[in-house]
């Protein structure tokens, strides 16, 4: 069937060739959502650049035509970040998946944004190195997406989030200019603003990173992985508080509740978690052998004091992989409970975990939704998961309402509405719980520094109103401050 090809699409084809420009509307349905499936909309087109120069050329073209655009990694985001509707063009970076440089001496790697998180670790494993941040989706999610969302993961309790591992980035700014943020090599710039820090977590609104320099970590001398089932969630939470309170810093502290355990055990990710347990606590310790041995004894003692039903410790790498398998497959496994899944991402102070979980359970019951909890207990980063049928408007409304209340509780307890999934389109209504109008205006101003025309992933991460007003005002403000006439681009 012949379709009239609009001029923009024609120009994109001229830049990249027809196979790398998708604009047939039905095919674009494959890009209609990320892991937050409540929001669905299909983009105007999808392009697949393979080099920095191609990204730059595409962005220049879109900027000149004032067409909004969104970078996309593997589409595993859980807040609607890369979902693009209307006139928006998606730059799918999956083909930019080369590891460009590995420095064993300075412990860094330079990668393209489409490099899969776990593939980076696989590329440096033989050198005794790894990339520390490990989202559950690490077998598919990309470093570019991790950078945009400031992704976390179980091991971020000890090693820090993505922002602690990004040293620099080559960025195509939303007007097509190229900027190098941060150090080219293994050190941060000696002075000046922490621009990589600013860029990290900007959710694809500050530009498109095409080369990312990340820190590599040496593999620890020893790793010990322990699993403790408990008869009550309270006991698992107290064990976590005791461990952290005693000054032990495990590499990871993860808790799964009973409903999650049952979903996982029914799936191909079954890990042998006991079905009768109300909660399991997964603890990983790493470091010098003597230290982990001492810490393991301490952790075992705390678990026993809090009534652990039994203690299981992995004795080899295969066992460890098995204990982790259930945790990594937990989100997907929840898909067995209903057609749709809403993964929340609230944070509370670790000491308030118990209280938060009780209140969350009550909220779930009040709204009549199916709710499970799997979370990074060490960070107090909760992932209440609501299983619902997206075809039922009432169930969807109750799910969203319960989610809203849960995030309010997190903020009330001194926490946050997102730990690692970002605001995206999902939490635009919640961001006001945490930030004042002034806070939001400052953020919008920072955003306008990078994207004065509001073309890069518009409508995400910040409420549109705050963003629009500031974007509109920004050029005049620059002109006033710098005393220059407003430069038209």
């Amino acid at each position, binding site marked *: 069937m012949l379709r009239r090809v609009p001029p923009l699409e024609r120009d994109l084809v001229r830049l990249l060739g027809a196979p790398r420009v998708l604009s047939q509307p039905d095919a674009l349905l*494959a890009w209609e959502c990320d892991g937050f499936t409540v929001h669905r909309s299909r983009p105007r087109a999808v392009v697949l650049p393979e080099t920095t120069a191609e990204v730059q050329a595409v962005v220049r073209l879109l900027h000149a035509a004032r067409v909004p655009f969104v970078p996309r990694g593997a589409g*595993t985001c859980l807040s609607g970040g890369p979902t693009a509707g209307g006139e928006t063009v998606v730059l799918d970076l*999956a083909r930019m998946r080369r590891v460009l440089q590995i420095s064993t001496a300075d412990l860094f790697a330079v990668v393209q944004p489409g490099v*899969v998180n776990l593939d980076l670790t696989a590329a440096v494993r033989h050198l005794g190195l790894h990339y520390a941040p490990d989202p559950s*989706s690490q077998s598919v999610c990309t470093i570019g997406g991790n950078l945009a969302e400031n992704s976390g993961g179980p091991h971020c309790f000890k090693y820090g989030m993505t922002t602690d591992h990004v040293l620099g980035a080559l960025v195509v700014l939303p007007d097509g200019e190229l900027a190098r943020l941060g150090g080219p090599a293994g050190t941060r710039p000696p002075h000046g603003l922490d621009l990589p820090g600013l860029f990290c977590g900007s959710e694809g609104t500050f530009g498109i990173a095409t080369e990312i320099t990340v820190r590599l970590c040496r593999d620890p001398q020893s790793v010990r992985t322990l699993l403790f089932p408990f008869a009550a969630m309270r006991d698992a939470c107290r064990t976590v508080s005791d461990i952290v309170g005693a000054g032990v810093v495990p590499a990871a502290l993860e808790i799964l509740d009973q409903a999650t355990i049952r979903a996982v055990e029914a*799936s191909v990710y079954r890990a042998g978690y006991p079905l009768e347990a109300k909660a399991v606590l997964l603890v990983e310790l790493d470091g010098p052998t003597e230290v982990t041995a001492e810490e393991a004894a301490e952790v075992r003692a705390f678990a026993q004091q809090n009534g652990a039903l039994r203690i299981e410790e992995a004795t080899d790498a295969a066992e460890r992989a098995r204990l982790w398998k259930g945790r990594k497959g937990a989100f997907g496994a929840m*898909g067995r409970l209903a057609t749709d899944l809403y993964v929340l991402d609230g944070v509370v102070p670790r000491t308030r975990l118990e209280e938060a979980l009780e209140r969350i359970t009550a909220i779930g019951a009040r709204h009549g939704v199916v709710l499970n909890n799997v979370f990074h207990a060490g960070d107090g980063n909760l992932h209440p998961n609501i299983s619902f049928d997206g075809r039922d408007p009432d169930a969807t409304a109750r799910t969203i309402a319960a989610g809203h209340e849960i995030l309010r509780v997190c903020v009330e307890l001194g926490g946050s509405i997102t730990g690692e999934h970002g605001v995206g389109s999902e939490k635009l209504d919640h961001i006001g719980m945490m930030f004042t109008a002034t806070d939001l205006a400052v953020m919008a101003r920072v955003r306008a520094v990078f994207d004065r025309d509001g073309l890069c992933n518009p409508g995400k991460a910040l409420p549109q109103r705050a963003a629009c007003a500031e974007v509109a005002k920004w050029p005049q403000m620059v002109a006033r401050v710098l005393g220059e006439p407003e430069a038209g681009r």
Partner: protein
Amino acid sequence: MACSSEPRLDPAAHARSLDCVHCGLCLPTCPTWQVTQLETESPRGRILLMRALAEGRVADPAAIRPFLDHCLDCRACETTCPSGVHYGELLEATRAEYERCAPQRGVKAWLVRTLLWHVVARQPRLRAAIALLRHAERSGLLRLAARLGLAPRSVPRIPPRRDRRPLPTGLHLPPPGVRRRSVRVALFTGCVMEPLFGHVHRAMLQVLLANGFEVTVPATQRCCGALLVHSGRPDRARQLAQQNVAAFADCDVVVDDAAGCGCTLGEYDRLLGDDAGAQFARKRRDVMAFLHAEGLSATPAECRARAAYDDPCHLCHGQGVRLQPRALLAQVPGLELVAHARPEECCGSAGIYHLLHGELATAIGRRKAETLVAADVDLVLTGNPGCMIQIDNHLRALGHPRPVRHPVELLVPAP
């Protein structure tokens, strides 16, 4: 379901698509995604497309058909899916719907339909066609045709007539002196296995007899119908399935040595949707899984080689058979079994896929051959005819020809 002018999925297939929560863990295991990095060539993307099709949101179903046709139906995504999506069922239902409402047009599509139903599914015609191919190969005609682009380059080497003879039908008894077991086994011989890999069938027969099993080869059996199911013609596959159910009606155990056939035979319950189909599905076994469960009593002949075992998709993903062939091969004296990267990733053969989607199949086949070359082996073992042909072709293309054999061949005891 009545046929409308446009393909629409039935509610059961639609429900299957809803099991997906879009977590994306399937992407890295999908061979077509690995070689294209296109969402439309991934299980997650295809599920969204099939779901949209079922919901009537696709304006032009023909526009998304190529993406669904490009799927190998290898089911690696099912192995990795935490949500338990029955992807194969969903895809096969969708393809059937397309074939019913909007059959592919063109010479190629007509040729495929004709060949699958009128030649491959009819043993005498298939034998005649393969004899012709042998002549074309010997005379150089095939090479010429391939060079002119009239014939695919991936045609397997055709064995001489004596190796193409069918397995004698009827009852076979273990040789004298072998301790008999109480199980009588019926062999499923399939379509292309007989003329192209007759030596594998004979090895299977020999191994079963040497291990004390009585073996029957029912004469009235037909092709399993796998290729028809995969290309959207379950109606025709059903006819074959019914004949097979009847042919094996009085057998207790049905054993096969082609993973693709075995997977389809094991899903006759779903294909036929009746008790007879379910009963048949329950009594069939892959030969390696069967021998592993029963235990070998005859020691295999020595084989000094460094070998890699590559899992056929329809054995590992389709039937969950992974450890059994390896455990049996470990009993072969002198054989060193080494691990290679991604043994469970498809080789790109996928029935007639390599003939229809040459470019993708070649890219996928090359990935497979590269992992085997990297493992530095001098023998490759895999239990499906298509995989044996494809891996052999791509090892030769990389300049590293290695013998590719069926694992059951290595279980033949020393004379």
